[in-house]
């Protein structure tokens, strides 16, 4: 969205300050601070156990931090501390202004109800009460994520892995959120399906001007989708910067290791 005014872009959408999460003596995440601006895609990379998923849960207010805070600029332009939102407000935010794409689509979808109802659920939750309109919107979204609209009445349990993941994306984007969290969105998919999904996500993100936080251990995903990269190790952010800068010219030894561990194409 090029029409975003520079003023809007100057104000961060999401602000993390000194975030930490301890499980007993284990520090899963320590002292993470950053700002995410509207329309920006941030990738969080690192190996298993580096604290990526914990950080994502902290940012999306699913976990309470041990220290620090997360603030989010609501649609009315006011920056609010997520910990101070009431549960009703938080849940409302979660199903309108935010999306959350799980690695396992079964967690983010209702596997037993039809694809149309899966996409329409958020609309019905915000008070849509016209079957025809809900269905039209659902089929438009199925088209946008390249699912045959003839399968609108099939349950996702009859879908392939790639289709499920695309359906999950449609379900999240139908309320036109401004921020989407993605947890290993391409994990568990084969390479050709991954490529198609990444292509789709890249287009949607730029069309809708979405901000996104993508957690991945796959540097190729980070390279394709994100503008900025944060590298995590042992619960700390060890390096951060523009994607091509970090991936092509890594500064930290660990990042160098991470980048060099990918087989050259």
């Amino acid at each position, binding site marked *: 969205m090029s029409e975003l005014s520079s003023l809007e872009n100057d104000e961060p959408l999401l602000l993390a300050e000194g975030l930490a999460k301890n499980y007993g003596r284990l520090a899963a995440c320590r002292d993470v601070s950053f700002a995410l601006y509207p329309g920006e895609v941030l990738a969080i990379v690192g190996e298993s156990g580096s604290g990526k998923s914990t950080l994502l849960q902290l940012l999306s207010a699913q976990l309470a931090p041990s220290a620090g805070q997360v603030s989010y600029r609501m649609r009315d332009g006011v920056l609010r501390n997520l910990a101070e939102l009431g*549960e009703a407000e938080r849940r409302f935010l979660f199903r309108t202004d935010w999306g959350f794409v799980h690695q396992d689509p079964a967690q983010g979808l*209702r596997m037993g*109800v039809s694809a149309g*109802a899966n996409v*329409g*659920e958020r609309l019905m939750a*915000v008070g849509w*009460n016209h079957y025809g309109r809900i269905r039209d919107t659902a089929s438009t979204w199925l088209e946008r994520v390249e699912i045959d609209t003839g399968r609108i009445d099939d349950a996702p349990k009859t879908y392939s892995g790639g289709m499920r993941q695309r359906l999950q994306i449609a379900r999240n984007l139908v309320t036109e959120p401004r921020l989407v969290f993605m947890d290993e969105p391409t994990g568990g998919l084969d390479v050709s399906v991954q490529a198609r999904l990444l292509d789709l996500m890249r287009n949607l993100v730029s069309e809708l001007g979405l901000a996104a936080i993508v957690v991945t251990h796959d540097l190729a995903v980070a390279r394709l989708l994100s503008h900025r990269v944060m590298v995590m190790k042992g619960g700390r952010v060890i390096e951060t910067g523009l994607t091509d800068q970090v991936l092509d010219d890594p500064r930290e030894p660990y990042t160098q290791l991470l980048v060099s561990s990918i087989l050259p194409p």
Partner: protein
Amino acid sequence: MNAPTYNFAYLDEQTKRMIRRAILKAIAIPGYQVPFASREMPMPYGWGTGGVQVTAAILGPDDVLKVIDQGSDDTTNAISIRKFFGKTAGVATTTSTTDATVIQTRHRIPEASLHAGQVLVYQVPIPEPLRFLEPRETETRRMHALAEYGLMHVKLYEDIARFGHIATAYAYPVKVNARYVMDPSPTPKFDNPKMDNCAALQLFGAGREKRIYAIPPYTTVVSLDFEDHPFTRYRFNAPCALCGADNSYLDEIVTDDKGGRMFVCSDTDFCEQRQAAGHHGTESAAPHKEKAHV
């Protein structure tokens, strides 16, 4: 007679107090499911243990009790519950809807309109309307608390997507007093409009699930629907074969093994009153004769 002597209406007074507190809370928050310490009753779950406990808790010596099962006063379940309270509380029983002060019901609301001062007690198998969509009790409670009822429309959406219309014919979800979504127990949706602005107090007891909920008199009860697929009542398109009524809810009765069937009022009291008043259907003109099989 060496039968043990029961406390009035079977339950002990402490239990009745506990149930009454739950009922008062339920009335104060229309449509909200109040947990209560459901007791073992001398009948199996699914036979109306919740309804029986509510009835036992509200029954007084002067009450007149009517019990119906699928609208009928003379099925096993109705007769045994009526006898149960006749024996343990010694209250008067009746089959007349207008004479009764307490009516315990399974699956129907009587056709005759209820009047102020009456209490309708429903037997409820599954009180949670969101249960088959969201299996977690913690989650459904939270959804009720925050009035997040989008999921209920997902069920109706699925009906239309699959069958072309809202095919839910019983336990049709309603919104009570513009706040809580409630399962009206497995009554046919034909009866849903009778709950709205009803003069009688409606109490719902679920024994196995340990929940009581209520609709106070003159409360708005709205059946959920879509703007382009509004709520509709459903009844078989036929008059009652016994009393000729064309506005009552009908049971379909198979009469032979050659496809023969007749439709009769499900509310036996309503049907009998009409017959006594001189209304006739196709089958009631003469006493039944044995049909000779060819």
